[in-house]
């Protein structure tokens, strides 16, 4: 029995809309080992954020199994879920909307500690808050400031401190640096890496930025319209991308260097909404390499190299 913090089997999350059933997350399976980072990459509408929230049981799964630390949490009650909150946490994308504008830094960071009765003594709570602030690089004097008085980078640090307050083992990072300036992004990424080493954290790192995910992840999962289209260790994915969508994503990365630009692997059209999808490859409408077979059946994930999985008829 390996060290798996999280195992996800055939996870599905569907939403009922007026136009039909929206397959936000459709048959996702993966696992993450302790101390490692899984990068989940995809553009808007691919279901990565929904996936993160279902795993944390902030949303209930439609089907499938979520096994956290060896325990099946897919069907447990919300009361049981609340008890697990000390072990699994989330860092949000938008540092501006993820903090209650009416609460001070102190109140925001101490709330999880108080509510979950981790520390009871008032003085001890404050010491813990200061300790957390120091860990994430927030100056002590900011303890009574309000979020709107601070910049995005500092607000994100508050969010990280809040997530760490209960010493979780597993953190879902939902695009934690996308809304930040470049130099602040780097500061926060370094912080997250340091925390991982220091506390042995396991991350699920959701992002659309491939340069960041390459830098930060051990393994990567590429999602498109609710499905996993490719799954591989990070280095392998970047060196040998197999799925056309992955190739397009890599090709779309703009490298800050002068010189000849390689021909871009451009996609046609736009991403559609996965409502009542037919049995076809969901990428077929945009794929430059599409053939007849792609429109007739949805490809399954198969292992092409050890540890490298692709869902494409052409591979």
């Amino acid at each position, binding site marked *: 029995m390996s060290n798996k913090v999280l195992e996800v089997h055939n996870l599905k999350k569907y939403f009922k809309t007026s136009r039909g059933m929206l397959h936000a997350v459709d048959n996702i399976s993966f696992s993450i080992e302790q101390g490692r980072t899984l990068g989940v990459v995809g553009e808007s509408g691919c279901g990565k954020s929904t996936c993160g929230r279902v795993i944390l049981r902030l949303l209930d799964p439609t089907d499938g199994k979520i096994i956290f630390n060896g325990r099946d949490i897919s069907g447990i009650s919300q009361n049981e879920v609340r008890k697990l909150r000390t072990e699994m946490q989330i860092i949000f994308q938008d540092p501006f909307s993820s903090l209650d504008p009416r609460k001070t830094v102190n109140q925001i960071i101490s709330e999880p500690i108080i509510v979950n009765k981790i520390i009871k003594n008032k003085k001890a709570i404050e010491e813990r808050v200061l300790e957390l602030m120091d860990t994430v690089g927030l100056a002590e004097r900011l303890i009574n400031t309000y979020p709107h008085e601070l910049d995005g980078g500092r607000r994100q640090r508050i969010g990280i401190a809040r997530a760490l307050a209960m010493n979780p083992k597993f953190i879902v990072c939902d695009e934690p640096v996308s809304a930040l300036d470049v130099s602040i992004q780097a500061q926060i990424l370094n912080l997250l890496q340091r925390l991982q080493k220091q506390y042995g954290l396991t991350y699920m790192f959701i992002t659309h930025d491939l340069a960041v995910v390459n830098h930060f992840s051990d393994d990567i999962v590429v999602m498109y319209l609710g499905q996993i289209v490719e799954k591989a260790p990070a280095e392998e994915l970047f060196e040998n991308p197999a799925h056309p969508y992955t190739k397009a994503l890599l090709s779309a990365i703009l490298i*800050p260097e*002068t010189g000849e630009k390689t021909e871009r692997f451009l996609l046609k059209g736009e991403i559609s909404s996965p409502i009542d999808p037919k049995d076809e490859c969901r990428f077929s409408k945009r794929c430059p390499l599409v053939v007849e077979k792609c429109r007739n059946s949805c490809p399954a994930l198969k292992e092409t190299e050890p540890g490298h999985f692709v869902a494409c008829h052409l591979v």
Partner: protein
Amino acid sequence: MENKNVILDIQDLEVRFEVDGEIIRAVNGVSLTLEKGKTLGLVGETGAGKTTAALAVMRLVPDPPGIIGKGNILLNGKDVMEMSVSNLEKIRGKEVSMIFQDPMTSLNPVFTVGEQIAESLEIHEQLSPADAMIKAKEMLELVGIPGYRASEFPYQFSGGMKQRVVIAIALACNPQLLIADEPTTALDVTIQAQVLALMKALKEKYGTAMIMITHDLGIVAEVCDEVAVMYAGRIIEKGTLDQVFNNTLHPYTEGLFNSLPNIKNRKSELRPIPGLMPDPVNLPPGCAFEPRCAYAREECGLRIPDSRFVSDHIVCCLAYDDPNFHIRRKGGKNVE
């Protein structure tokens, strides 16, 4: 000094905002020239003053609380600061156009996209509504949207398509200068690639000069000919793309490059610039970057560096008083 090739000439632009008794110094002495058909990348992080400077070109800075303190802005030789409002309205949309970051809020939700493109044509080119609509459909085709969608409303389009509509509106009257303020930041990366390719193609087709405001050095490398890096309201480095990228001079620019994850070397460490950009209400007396600069010396905190020509382009850094000084980044890579 009339150069017929120069579409935009800004000299010593200063813009400040007076709010609640405090003065926010957003733009502090910006000078730049742009030739016809060229693309300038105006690079900087949030709060650097790039958007304010661009708005000033079209005199769109909200007044109050914004005040253009001093500066000359010559658009095609004409002084924008001296123009009457009605003349300004004539050139906005016709000689100079602007596109903004968020396509969700740039389009009016109660008019069809065709009407919004046609509006510009009716006002500036004096076309009849019928003719304007025909041209509007052509513009849609040009940006890759089927013409029959001109009768649809913005909510029926995705983010990337809305941005294309915004581009169509901006280019409808064939302006000589297009100011694009972070046009692809809100878009997915594959859509961004499409939109940038489109902008490049249109720019070449029409010979439009462009100012691309962005914080993304990758975008700059992709579409720009020249680069100006802004920090705390000043341009601290300015040159051609090759000069700024491969002969980087200013420590801040170097810091920006170091902050980026290196696609080719995944385990290389990110070296962020420590600290934060200074509060524009409280700018330090000397160089604004000095508190964060790895190469700072005592005099850097005492006086603001002037713009000087070093090697092959312009930089504002006192370190170059020493002719042997160089930053660690050389030729687009780090040497130690």
